[in-house]
């Protein structure tokens, strides 16, 4: 259903951009913006509002780490005026895709100006790309996207500034809410196991320990030794809960939980938003969903 609607909108948009263009000179076509994944698209939508058309290459529930670009993506990039990428090595495939598409769009790296945390990936230390998991960083994302939009579409500067101001205010409220919820969890219980090591920034910002049974990347397959290590760790540290994410194998987490006696928490969203009817269809809903799930599993 969503697919059909999307097709219809793109047909309408291309009509508006071609045949109908000159006739409706007063209302210029919307600025075509492409974001690499759903969370960046949500930021861009909030700042650009009705002046832009945002498409995400990796849609809801998709895994950006192992995404395989489709020919339609190159086409999408070719038509775009602005491309929003996360950077910090999250989208290993984007540089070649941009080159292949021959697009003239300018590229914004949304993490520009963020001080990256380091993380261990397959034995090597590298920057952790999941910077949006701290709301303070999300505000930098929004500022970068705002500046990029203004550069690409100077006529909309006032609108972009006002929208961004409004959205940054909402993020401040969200951050206060998250911090308030965390005070309800006893400090000794602020640690969980989760399948995908994507909450490093969240942990640093809000005083949580996230322990992952796999490395940062969802590409690697767990060995018996890794699983055994995790189970020993849960028992030794008395970690109260194990969480599933929306992108990795839930069977492994359930089997670890069953063996270690930890509770299985709800779903935390890390790398992708949920579809529109899900509990985390926007960034703000995602952070709310995550803190609510954490509080529910850990509060007593």
């Amino acid at each position, binding site marked *: 259903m969503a697919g059909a609607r999307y097709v219809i909108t793109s047909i309408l948009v291309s009509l508006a951009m071609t045949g109908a263009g000159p006739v409706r000179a007063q209302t210029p076509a919307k600025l075509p913006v492409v974001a690499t994944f759903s969370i960046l698209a949500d930021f861009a939508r909030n700042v650009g509002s009705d002046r832009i058309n945002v498409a995400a290459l990796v849609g809801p529930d*998709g895994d950006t780490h192992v995404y395989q670009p489709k020919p339609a993506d190159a086409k999408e990039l070719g038509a775009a005026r602005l491309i929003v990428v996360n950077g910090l090595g999250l989208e290993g495939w984007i540089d070649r895709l941009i080159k292949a598409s021959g697009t003239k769009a300018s590229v914004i790296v949304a993490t520009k100006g963020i001080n990256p945390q380091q993380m261990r990936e397959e034995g090597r230390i590298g920057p952790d790309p999941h910077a949006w998991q701290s709301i303070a960083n999300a505000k930098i994302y929004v500022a970068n996207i705002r500046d990029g939009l203004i550069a690409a579409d100077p006529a909309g500067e006032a609108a972009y500034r006002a929208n961004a101001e409004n959205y940054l205010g909402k993020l401040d409220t969200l951050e206060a809410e998250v911090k308030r919820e965390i005070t309800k969890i006893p400090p000794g219980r602020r640690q969980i196991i989760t399948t995908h090591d994507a909450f490093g920034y969240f942990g640093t910002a809000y005083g949580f320990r996230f322990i992952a049974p796999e490395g940062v990347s969802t590409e690697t397959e767990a060995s018996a030794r890794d699983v055994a290590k995790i189970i020993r760790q849960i028992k030794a540290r008395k970690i109260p809960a194990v969480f599933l994410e929306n992108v990795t194998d839930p*069977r492994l987490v359930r*089997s670890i939980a069953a063996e270690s006696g930890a509770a299985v928490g709800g779903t935390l969203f890390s790398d992708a938003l949920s579809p529109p009817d899900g509990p985390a269809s926007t960034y703000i809903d995602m952070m709310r969903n995550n803190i609510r799930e954490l509080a529910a599993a850990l509060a007593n």
Partner: protein
Amino acid sequence: MHDLLIAPFAEFAFMRRALAGSIALAIAGPPLGVFLILRRMALTGDAMAHAILPGAALGYLAAGLSLGPMTLGGLAAGLIVAVGSGVVARTTVLREDASLAAFYLISLALGVTIVSLRGSNIDLLHVLFGSVLALDDATLILLAMIASLTLAALAALYRPLVLETVDASFLASVSKSGGPVQIIFLALVVLNLVGGFHALGTLLAVGMMMLPAASARLITEDMTAMIGLAAAQGILAGYAGLIVSFHAGLPSGPLIILMAGLLYLLALVFGPAGGLLRRLKPGRHLEA
């Protein structure tokens, strides 16, 4: 010694589950592999494993990563390909191998397309590679049921199956059971591959079926001993793979198949019934 070989299973339930699952797979799969090899259908297992994919993918699309729909879908797709290629082979000029190749390639392409419809591609890896470390009760029961059913069916069909394997025209002259036996046999192969893909994934499940069988064929010419040896090697490979995965920190599914491969290489060199070293002396004929 105890720490090295037994402690991992004593300490961790997931290791015991993985071992139980591998044993269930090894009891039923390799004996089927023996028949496949003796019928010169060694690559059929591989073809069938790919043929399962669209059914499993449809089940996955309908209900996510859940046991029932994926099993039923895989079973249905495998049977359609098995029966369909059999019918084509009997009614057209195409031989069995050519029609099977055609059917499984279509099936595989369909499967990859269906999986990609979902948009999230990570899960395809779990369909293709499974997870022997994450066997829950329902999956273990399914594997045990498949193993029991396979053994019972093999016992009941043993005589016509062996006859059809060694001398199909003789069986055709004394009985009409050849056709049904062939279909039931292929159905058992599909059933075991579907069970195997939950634990090892579609690609590795074939390895568990074929490698111990090929190795057993190199060690003995006696049909009954071959079946027993194949199952025993499967179990040994399952155990050794898990132990090495535990101590070396390597993924378990591929390690199990590598261990089966190692046993095969040993048999290839030292096998008393056609191994490289024995090849210099004349051997006995195959007994049924």
